[in-house]
């Protein structure tokens, strides 16, 4: 969920009202935002740069969490009008595009650029007036869009330029890095694209974007008719065309691998900042010519009409409202709505609301405007008969019996290190059908456990201070690779118990096995046949020589028990003998 920082006083000025923190928090809550933190600018500088740099005045900053699909709220210029509309204070603005007959801007795409970053969209904001704050907000919004909808500039990358410093028509090309040469933003000399990549290799922010084009034989580049480089997307703009506080005419270009997202980003920027243009809410279109001579005009700023059935909508939410009332509710969510006959509503979805892709999104807006907490509580009328999942039911019954037998339940992690199930238990990793994790952040999460033993032994190790004996158990899932399963792996419910004392106590763990099988009504097979269960001596490196047995139940091996090998004991940092039992319980279902 993205968080934006807004100066409180500026926000309240835009809202034309001063709120207390709590009042504003409540407003946010109702609208689906969250006032995450109230801080000051001075503190923020300290937090982020870890320096004791301080500004002259310390302004109060609101950190506000914005839902991930509401790009239109990522800056004050979008947030404030949305709240004002929600509060019924202003009308919904109408965004228009103009396409000048002369002096129109044009970007021509080459075959080359399609190979690496195949789309570009653009728009011009004419006669804009920035203040220090709105200028900063303009820069911030681009950064927010890069991070969120742009997936760290991999999907889209935005460049904004002072149109009066460059000369169209523009060219969107891609060339070998050594053939691109310009002065990057805020640098004092010119570099080749290759040099720029080296320059930013250790740059705190920019280095994370280098990989997007680094290994490509050609790098995308936007330049004007005189060969002045505007940008090297998605890395950096040129210094020549950089915008300043006094810039009047802005060219916004957005290169992308995902055209839908590029259009959304462009719409979002121009909708938010066209309010500072001389002719408010008006944006000048740019012509894009694809290599195949197809021509498109951007920004879209498309208004879409959706028709919904009012009764269906109110029934979906569970409220009683007339069509007019619903229309009013929707209008408060920036969705201009008119009532048609037969209870139908015509809803105009504006270019700020790209999150609305289905009628259910409109239903949600009705519910938000109505107020979630005013909706009548009802209980659905369906009759269903409950049923436990048989494996969980059996597990719970066994857990209670194990506790009755005097054992204490542990709850350990499903993930562990390779060492835990292999080396430490004296086993070979190659022989273990384990599920391996490709991106663990620590050694603790290398694989999914294939046995419950390490978890119990670690629990013992962490509780040495408790008086002996230790009697622990866990009934939980292990995970095994299995090619017969659709996913290639399956869970297996195991029961594991350990007895730890100054002596090995094998007979106690054995007694526990007998008890468990007794209550599962499995008889002891004294002549070792398939009519019950019996033990079969086996050698296993986890266990002490000649102190380990396989447990056979109706002829099938269901697990092992034995006295833990002293090497295993010490590898788990224990110093007392342990006997252990581990069986599969799925066979008892």
């Amino acid at each position, binding site marked *: *969920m993205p968080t934006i920082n807004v100066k409180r006083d500026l926000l309240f000025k835009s809202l034309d009202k001063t709120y207390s923190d709590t009042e504003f928090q409540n407003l946010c*809550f*109702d609208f689906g935002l969250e006032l995450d933190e109230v801080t000051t600018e001075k503190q923020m500088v300290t937090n982020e740069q870890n320096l004791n740099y301080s500004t002259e005045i310390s302004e109060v900053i609101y950190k506000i969490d914005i839902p991930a699909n*509401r790009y239109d709220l990522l800056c004050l210029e979008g947030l404030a009008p949305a709240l004002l509309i929600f509060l019924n204070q202003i009308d919904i603005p109408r965004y228009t595009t103009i396409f000048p007959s002369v002096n129109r801007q044009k970007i021509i795409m080459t075959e080359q650029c399609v190979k690496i970053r195949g789309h570009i969209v653009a728009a011009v904001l004419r006669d804009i007036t920035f203040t220090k704050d709105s200028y900063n907000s303009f820069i911030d919004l681009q950064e927010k869009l890069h991070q969120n909808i742009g*997936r760290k500039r991999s*999907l889209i990358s935005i460049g904004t330029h002072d149109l009066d410093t460059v000369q169209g028509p523009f060219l969107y090309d891609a060339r070998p890095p050594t053939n691109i040469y310009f002065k990057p933003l805020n640098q004092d000399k010119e570099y080749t694209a290759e040099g720029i990549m080296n320059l930013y290799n250790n740059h705190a922010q920019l280095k994370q974007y280098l990989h997007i084009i680094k290994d490509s034989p050609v790098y995308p580049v936007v330049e004007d008719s005189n060969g002045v480089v505007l940008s090297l997307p998605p890395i950096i703009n040129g210094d020549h065309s950089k915008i300043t506080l006094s810039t009047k005419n802005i060219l916004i270009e957005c290169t992308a691998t*995902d055209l*839908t997202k590029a259009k959304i980003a462009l719409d979002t920027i121009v909708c938010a900042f066209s309010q500072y243009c001389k002719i408010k809410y008006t944006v000048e279109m740019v012509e894009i010519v694809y290599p195949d001579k197809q021509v498109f005009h951007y920004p879209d700023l498309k208004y879409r009409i959706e028709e919904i059935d009012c009764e269906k909508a109110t029934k*979906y939410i*569970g*409220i009683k409202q007339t069509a007019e009332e619903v229309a009013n509710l929707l209008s408060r969510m920036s969705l201009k709505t008119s009532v048609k006959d037969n209870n139908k509503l015509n809803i105009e979805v504006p270019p700020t609301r790209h999150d609305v*892709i*289905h*009628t*259910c999104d409109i239903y*949600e807006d009705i*519910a*938000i405007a109505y107020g*979630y907490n005013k909706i009548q*509580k*009802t*209980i*659905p009328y*369906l*009759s*269903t*008969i*409950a049923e*436990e*999942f048989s*494996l*969980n039911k059996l597990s719970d019954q066994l*857990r209670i019996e194990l506790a009755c037998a*005097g*054992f*204490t*339940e*542990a*709850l*350990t992690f499903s*993930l562990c290190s390779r060492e835990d199930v292999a080396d430490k238990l004296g086993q070979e990793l190659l022989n273990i059908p384990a*599920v*391996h*994790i*490709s*991106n*663990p952040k620590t050694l603790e999460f290398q694989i999914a456990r294939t046995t419950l033993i390490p978890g119990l032994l670690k*629990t013992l190790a962490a*509780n*040495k201070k*408790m*008086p002996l004996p*230790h*009697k622990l158990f866990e009934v939980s899932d292990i*995970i095994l690779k299995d090619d017969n399963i659709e*996913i290639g*792996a*399956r*869970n297996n*419910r195991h029961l594991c118990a350990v007895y730890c004392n100054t002596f090995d106590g094998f007979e106690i763990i054995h007694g526990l096995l007998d008890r468990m099988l007794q209550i599962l009504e499995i008889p002891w097979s004294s002549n070792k046949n398939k009519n019950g269960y019996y033990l079969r001596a086996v050698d296993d490196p986890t266990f002490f020589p000649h102190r380990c047995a396989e447990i056979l139940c109706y002829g099938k091996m269901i697990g092992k028990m034995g006295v833990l090998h002293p090497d295993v004991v010490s590898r788990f940092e224990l110093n007392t003998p342990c006997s252990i039992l581990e069986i599969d319980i799925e066979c008892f279902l």
Partner: protein
Amino acid sequence: MAKQLTEQILDYLNKHEEVNSLHLSEVFKENHQKIIGAIKSLETLDDLITTKQITDKKWELTSEGQHVASYGSHEAAVYNAIPDDGMPQSEIMQSVPFAKVGFSKALQASWIVIDKSSGTPIVKKKVSSITDITQKDLKDLASLTDRLKNEYKKRKLIQEIVIKFVQLGKGPNFTTTIEKQETELTADLLANGAWKDKKFKPYNFDALGATLEVGHLHPLLKVRSEFRKIFLEMGFTEMPTNNFVESSFWNFDALFQPQQHPARDAHDTFFIAEPSRSTNFPMEYMEKVKRVHSEGGYGSLGYRYDWKIEEAQKNVLRTHTTAVSARMLYNLMQQGEFKPVRYFSIDRVFRNETLDATHLAEFHQIEGVVADYNLTLGDLIGTLYEFFKKLGITQLKFKPAYNPYTEPSMEIFCYHEGLKKWIEIGNSGMFRPEMLLPMGLPEDVNVIAWGLSLERPTMIKYGLNNIRDLVGPKVDLEMVYNNPICRLNKTSQNSSQTKKAEDKKQELNKHENKSCTFKCAEKFEKQKLIIFCDPKHPIKFIELFFHHVKNYVNIFVTSYVHSSVQHVPNYLLNFCSECRNEDQANDINLTIIWKEIGIDPIMQLPGMYTITGEINVARYLNRLIENCYPRVLRYESKDALYANEIDNYLEKIHIFLHTNVHHAIHKKSHYVMGEDISIVDILLESLEK
């Protein structure tokens, strides 16, 4: 033995009316501790004797002092060693014990002079005879003035010791013949009817009963059982969630979660290297999912991007149990016809998140799903109220939220009576048509669902601040042992608050004032302490001690290595790593300086006082805590006998530290001192480490 002793004591008391335990120890030639034990057992008999605890201070010769008392002072020894014509200074230094001290003292007293005229310093007598006042004084300690006592104390010739003993007197029911009282009703006593004539020892109802050896269920799973019951009571069928490994297709794509969604990043999700891919999807359904993502359909614009099957094939550890809900709804429709269902599950999910006090890489998700024709958002809200009512939560609030697979989406907040605030407890919503319609659910079927973690409500309920105290191998089994039964709809006062030292203290003090006259200080006095300690003999108990008291006082420890130390073992670098948070509010500010000084650490207090030896440091720290929180670690606040016994154990530990002769201390029950933990337990535990 003790029985005989008790009778001897009674006889003696009968003859002497009043006597003290020290005296008895001399008379009977018995260890004082044994006498105290016998007196304790006599005390249990009603009004047989009266006792009074007495603490006395006494001056006593040190071993050096004893030497002086018997053989004369060091200065006299020096004087007497000098022949009339004097002798070289170096010779004296070698021939007389304690010559260095004796020499300077003798010089000071002008008994001797040094003659340097011949080149080598020759020492000669200055006076013809001397009186050894020091020896005289030490032979008669009683008549010394305080000034002299301090003087000799400084010279380490005498020391002040604290003696604790008991003054005995006859009680109203005094008698020398104690009838043997039965402690237990036995089968024998019943069989022959002897119980009728026997006298039974009264029970001490103020003591706790014996600790039973029992098994326990894990606290989190007890809460899980309660949640399962609630769902079952409400008619929900349990989903089979025993598949931790899931394909991205079911975990994300089927839920209309776009392939560029940040949750599908390696930063948030565990991807599987082996088995890395799933290829076996229901093809017809997969095509529908692909279409709704890339082109839309079912009334949706879709996300309009290039949907790739490779991305869907990637196996992951499931990030939510909703993957199973998706499979369940799909399977439901595979049976041919829709029927209304209620499903639930509580099982593990995995996130490759940064870990902190409240986040682990795996946790339990609770999920409820209801599918029926024409369900409404109001139905979801009503169902949630019913569900949370069973948890004892009656006030809910819903906040609009965003979730790729639900619309409308609501975050659930509940008002916590104990914490007196609104807390976020879960998420909920109605599944999007883009998720449901490709599965073949009828258009007028709506599905409401909600999810929450099992750990969070459990931590709030039990007042835990760190999730590792609850889940995983580091869990404290003592917490498991003492965990109450789980009654979710009951808000008990002591469970609902997060532990706050202040609250705790108030509660403790209230208790204290009722049961004990021991005066506890209102406020913990801030302490600034320095301990010099040999890295070869680390003062290990400090770590355990601080751990034990950390809920009551804030402790900050820094450590330095003295320049003379060549090598400090690695494990000492993390010494007291629990107490590394510097804070204005630290109650104890301890600096440890590793320096080669031998077995006994030296603690420096403000004003240049020092305390030497591990057990004395322990005693000092114990007093500090006890002064403010007497119940945390009992020592002197109970009574003199109790303290005396602890002192004896401490002595044994001291000897053990110095000689390695085993201390032979045994636990009476839970702890060395019985039911209460004491500094002795902490020291013993540190010795075992």
